[in-house]
C-alpha cells in the first residue's frame, strides 16, 4: 500500500481543483534549488477525496460485508459516505447522524466485535492545501480507532464537521473509554460531543479561551531583550512547507 496517498492521482485523472507547487514555483523564500521536488496537491489537500473501489482486499471486504449485514444496506449507504484503503488501513467516512448505529453494530455484532475503542482524536484540516475549507469540505475531523480483540483487526471511523456547527454524537454510551478522549478532543479542537456525561476541559485550565490545536489558534512569540526584538510565533517564521 506504499504511496497509496497518491493513488488515482495524475494529470489525466486529477479531479478539478488540484494543483502543483514547489520546484521553481517557490513562495516565501528565494530557494530555487528544487530540493523539495514537485509537489502535487490533491483537491482535498491532505484529505484524500477519492474512494477506494471494491474489492478492498484482505479482511476489509469481510468486515464491510458484515457491517452491511448488521445495519442493512440502506442504513450503510446513508451512513458511510466513502471508504478509503490506504497503507494497509481502512477508513470509513461516516455521517454523524449514523455514528452511534454504526458503532453499536461494530461493537456488538459477532462477525465484527470491535470491543476496544483505542483512540478518539481530532484533526484540523484548515488550509491543508487545496481550496479553502467550506461547508461541503468541513475542516474539523473526528477520528475513531476501533480494535477488534477477537479478530485482531483495526479500523478507522472518520467524521467531518464545520467550525460553526462542531457537534458530534458522543460514543461514551457504547465505549466508556471514550470519556477522556472526547474531553481532550473538545479541549483541543472545540468539537462538542452531544450526550457526553461531563464535557469539560481536561488538559487546559477550565477558564482557558480558545482551542489550542486548531490551526488558526493564535500562537505567541517570545520577546528577547535586544532592541525590543521578538522571536516570531512558530507559524509565522520563515519555513519550508
Amino acid at each position, binding site marked *: 500500500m506504499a504511496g497509496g496517498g497518491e493513488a488515482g492521482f495524475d494529470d489525466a485523472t486529477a479531479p478539478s481543483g488540484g494543483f502543483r507547487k514547489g520546484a521553481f514555483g517557490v513562495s516565501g523564500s528565494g530557494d530555487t534549488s528544487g530540493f523539495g521536488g514537485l509537489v502535487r496537491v490533491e483537491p482535498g489537500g491532505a484529505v484524500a477525496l477519492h474512494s477506494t473501489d471494491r474489492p478492498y482486499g484482505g479482511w476489509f471486504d469481510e468486515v464491510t460485508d458484515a457491517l452491511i449485514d448488521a445495519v442493512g444496506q440502506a442504513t450503510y449507504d446513508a451512513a458511510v459516505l466513502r471508504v478509503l484503503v490506504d497503507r494497509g488501513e481502512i477508513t470509513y467516512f461516516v455521517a454523524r447522524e449514523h455514528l452511534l448505529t454504526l458503532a453499536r453494530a461494530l461493537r456488538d455484532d459477532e462477525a465484527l466485535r470491535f470491543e476496544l475503542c483505542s483512540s478518539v482524536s481530532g484533526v484540523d484540516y484548515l488550509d491543508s*492545501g487545496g481550496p479553502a475549507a467550506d461547508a461541503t469540505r468541513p475542516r474539523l475531523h473526528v477520528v475513531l480507532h476501533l480494535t477488534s480483540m477477537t479478530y485482531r483487526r483495526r479500523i478507522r471511523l472518520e467524521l467531518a464537521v464545520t467550525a460553526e456547527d462542531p457537534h458530534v454524537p458522543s460514543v461514551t454510551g457504547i465505549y466508556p473509554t471514550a470519556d477522556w478522549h472526547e474531553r481532550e478532543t473538545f479541549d483541543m479542537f472545540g468539537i462538542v460531543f452531544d450526550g457526553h456525561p461531563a464535557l469539560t476541559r481536561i488538559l487546559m485550565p477550565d477558564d482557558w479561551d480558545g482551542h*489550542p490545536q486548531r490551526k488558526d489558534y493564535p500562537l505567541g512569540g517570545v520577546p528577547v531583550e535586544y532592541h525590543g526584538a521578538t522571536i516570531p510565533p512558530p507559524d509565522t517564521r520563515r519555513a519550508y512547507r
Partner: protein
Amino acid sequence: MSTVYNEADPYAGSRETTEGRVYTVTGGDWDLTFADPHDEDRLVVNMGPQHPSTHGVLRLVLDLEGETVTKARVVIGYLHTGIEKNTEYRNWVQGTTFVTRMDYLSPLFNEAGYCLAVEKLLGIEAPQRAQTIRVLVMELNRIASHLVALATFGMEMGALTGMTNGFREREMVLDVLEEITGLRMNHAYIRPGGLAQDLPEGAVESVRDLLKILPKRVADFHRLLTGQPIWQNRLKDAGYLDVTGCVALGVTGPILRAAGLPWDLRKVEPYLGYETYDFEVPTADTSDAWGRYLVRMAEVNESLKIVAQALDRLEPGPVMVEDRKIAWPAQLSLGADGMGNSLDHVRNIMGQSMESLIHHFKLVTEGFRVPAGQVYVPIESPRGELGFHVVSDGGTRPWRVHVRDPSFVNLQATAAMSEGGMIADVIAAIASIDPVMGGVDR
C-alpha cells in the same frame, strides 16, 4: 479569570460604604458547602497535585464516608506541555526529540512508535540491524520502566527498601542506555529510517554484564517483597478490575494481563520482528494490584530473555536506510573533545561536490517530505497500547501527531478501581496503574 462577587455570593458578604462596596471575604467553610443532614460523615478530601503518593502531579478528589471512598475524581493536566502541537512546527526528524519527552519512563517506546508511524507513511522499513537494536534498547527500557513502577509501588505502600533497590537497579540499566545512546533519558536515538548511530564499541559487553547481574537482582526483589505478609495484604483484592471492565475502559498492558487476558501487541500484532523472538506473555487471574505486581515482575524476566536473543542475532550492517533523501546525513564519532560529527565525514561532505553540500544542507534545514495520508501505529509500551496517529499533508512537517498514551487511558479506571473501597487501597490502585504524568498530559 476574575471572580465576580455579588450579594448572592455565599463566600463574600458586602455592604455599601462611602468608599464603595466593601466585601467581607471569609475562608471557605466546608461544613456550609457540604452540609448534608442525612450524611454527616461525608468528607471531601483533595489529594495532590503535589502528594508523594500520586505519581507526580496527579490530583485526586475523594468523597469519603469514614474510610470508605464513595467517589473518586481524577484531575489531570498539570503537566500539559503541548508536545502534540509542537511537533506540527518542526520537521519530521525533530519530532523524535519531542515525543521522547512525553512518557519519560519509556522514551524509547515513544521514539519507536513515532518512527514506525513515519516509516509507514513513507513506505520504508529500517534495516535489519536497526530493527534488532531497536528491540534491544526498547526491552532494556521496559526493564528500567518496570523497575521504577515496582520501586514507586514499594514507596507508596511504605516499603522504602523496595524503592531504593528498584531505583538502584534501574540506574544500572540507564547506565547501559547512556553508553549506547549518549543520554540516560530523552535519547532521540531512534530516528525515522533507522537509528542515530550504531552501537558503540563495548556496548554489547556492557549489556551482557547487565544480563548477568539483573536476574539475581530480580530474585532479590522477590525475596524482599513477594513473600512478605504485609506486602501481600496491602495488594491483594485492592484496585479490582476484571477483563470486562478493562476493555470497556480501554485499559491495556499489565493491568489487562493481570485480569487474565494475554493481550500483548508484541504477540498479537507483531512489529520489528517480535514474532521471531521466544518469550512468554505473563498473566495473572486475580484482577487486582497483587496480580499487576506479579505480572510486571515476570515481564522483567521475559524482557531479559528478549535482550539476550537480540544480542545473539546482531549482524553487522547499516543502521539507517540507504535512501540519501531520507537518511540523516550526520555521522557521530568520539573525538578528543567528546562526541561530535566525525571529522572524516565532514571532510567527505565538504570535499565531494557543491551539490552534495547543498543536499546535506537542505536535508538538515528543510527536511524530507512525507506523502499525504494518515496512519495509526500501535506498539506495546510498558504501560499498554501506545498508539501514534500521524497525519501528513505531504509537507516537511507533520500535519498532526496524536498520541494514544496508555497512562492517559488507564488512569480513567481509577474510579472503577477505588470507589467502594478503603482510602488506603486508592494508593495501591493508583500505584498498580503506574501512570506517568508526562504521558498522561503530554
